[in-house]
């Protein structure tokens, strides 16, 4: 197990290094000089040069890369060029929208998908299975931003139960959760559809295993065998998908945040790209990639701990 974990850890570090180089390189090819963007078209050449110096834009590439990486490792993400505040503070503000939104959506999607998947698998081929599978087909086909628009049309404009957008902050937690509800539902729907399908097929796999037949032969009812043995074993692949979905939800909220005018990480990236605020873009993208890679690593380790066969395989 220790060798397995060590190998995964090594590949984790290598992936992070490779990701940071890729992000840095991509940001470097962006046309447009941030300094001239900040000063406008009428800036004097020497002022421009002085600002470039101050921003470190005149240093050689490897020095800038090194400064960026060591800065991030020590918690210094640099200072935003447009907001004039440390990137850490910006991220700190925004993460308290994006993170709760992702968690909220994940909870909703799990709450919908688990029962749906279990019912579908245990009544395989029946009308309940058919209608649940039909619903998941529809769920994966609906673009979440369109679903968001429909939700706004029904629940914000017609029924007036929720506000159509914006975020009031966490001073009033009930109000904050309420304003995240429609975005979370919009994000959760396609995820729930995918998760329900995975839950169903994973459960069908375990239901076909010999140990289920043994359990039934020992006198357990179908229901008991399902809950005591099948569901537990079926959870392993489902947890992987949940892990992947979490990082997707954190980054994938970008469009939903646009629909609902939520001040989250996605909107921050979007605004920073259009404002050529590269330091924010590279740091936030790196942060998201970091989360994805670490979550995948955690899932791998959890997998290896649960199922010893996997350790030797990879």
């Amino acid at each position, binding site marked *: 197990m220790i060798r397995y974990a060590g190998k995964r850890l090594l590949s984790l570090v*290598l*992936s992070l290094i490779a990701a940071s180089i890729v992000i840095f390189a991509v940001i470097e090819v962006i046309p447009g000089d941030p300094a001239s963007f900040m000063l406008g078209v009428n800036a004097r050449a020497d002022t421009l040069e002085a600002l470039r110096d101050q921003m470190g834009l005149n240093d050689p590439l490897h020095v800038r890369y090194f400064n960026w990486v060591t800065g991030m490792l020590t918690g210094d993400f640099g200072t935003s060029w447009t907001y004039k505040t440390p990137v850490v503070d910006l991220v700190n503000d925004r993460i308290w929208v994006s993170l709760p939104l992702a968690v909220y959506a994940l909870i909703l999607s799990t709450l919908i998908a688990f029962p749906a998947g279990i019912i579908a698998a245990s009544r395989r081929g029946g009308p309940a299975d058919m209608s649940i599978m039909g619903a998941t087909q*529809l769920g994966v*086909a609906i*673009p979440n931003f369109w679903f968001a628009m429909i939700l706004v049309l029904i629940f914000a*404009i017609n029924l007036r139960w929720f506000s159509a957008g914006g975020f009031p902050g966490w001073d009033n937690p009930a109000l904050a959760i309420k304003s995240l509800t429609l975005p979370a539902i919009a994000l959760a729907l396609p995820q729930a559809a995918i998760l329900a399908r995975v839950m169903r097929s994973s459960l069908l796999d375990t239901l076909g295993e010999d140990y289920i037949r043994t359990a039934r032969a020992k006198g357990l009812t179908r229901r008991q065998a399902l809950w005591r043995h099948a569901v537990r074993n079926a959870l392993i692949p489902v947890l992987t998908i949940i892990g992947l979905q979490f990082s997707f939800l954190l980054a994938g909220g*970008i469009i939903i945040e646009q629909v609902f005018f939520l001040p989250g990480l996605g909107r921050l990236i979007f605004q920073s790209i259009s404002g050529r605020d590269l330091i924010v873009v590279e740091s936030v993208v790196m942060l998201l990639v970091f989360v994805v890679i670490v979550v995948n690593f955690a899932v791998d380790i959890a997998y290896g701990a649960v199922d010893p066969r996997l350790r030797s395989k990879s």
Partner: protein
Amino acid sequence: MTRNIIFGGVLTTLFTGLAILSFFYTPYDIQSLDIPNKLHPPNGANWLGTDHFGRDILSMIMMGARTSIAVAVLAVGIGICVGIPLGLLAAARRGSLLDEVIMRGNDLVFAFPSLVIAILITAIFGASAINAIIAIGIFNIPVFARLSRGAALPIWERDFILAARVSGKSSFRISIEHILPNITNLMIVQGTIQFSLGILAEAALSYIGLGAQPPTASWGRMLADAQTLTSIAPHTALIPGLAIVLMVLGLNLLGDGLRDWLDPRLRRGRV
């Protein structure tokens, strides 16, 4: 499940047909504005109503189908043309450094939040249909590379491959002549699924203004335009959304149906 193939095939053919028809005929010209007739709900003259510029929504949907399908097909094409050779190469040289590099490269692409990177790419190189194709296409590469490697590995263990090797064929020729034909079905099925994901991605990019630019019609753009009008003219938001849903649904059903039809083992297993 031939029902899936029929239903999915009908929907896919319908939209593809509309897209092809739009090259020769649309009920109205979508370049000309007709402000006095703006925001009409569906009626006899404009079957699907008009938008905020008085343009015919049916004609816009037809032109939009063209954009969506073109972007998605080309993006899947990038994935297939780059991904499958990489996967076959990795499988032919399994266990080597090259295999390791290709597979770790795949993992790396998977680790990036695809939408964020697509936004980054279109923001860097400018918002256009071409850049949307590239941005979506890049994330199709590892999908096909991983799948084709995974499918090719067990085939390499089979006896007829051994026979081909004994007869002196190079691993390149074996990959092309024996491995590729055996994984084609799987690639077709995956291609259908990636096609539908491409439609969704294109819609998302054009919705935030980073896809095809006006006056080119696109479904995502139509939704973005409709967003502030939902309360006074709901049809402007409902119709393009439904077009996306039906197109994606059709492709997914087609993919599912093809998988069951092409792989009898799955058909028995899934009953």
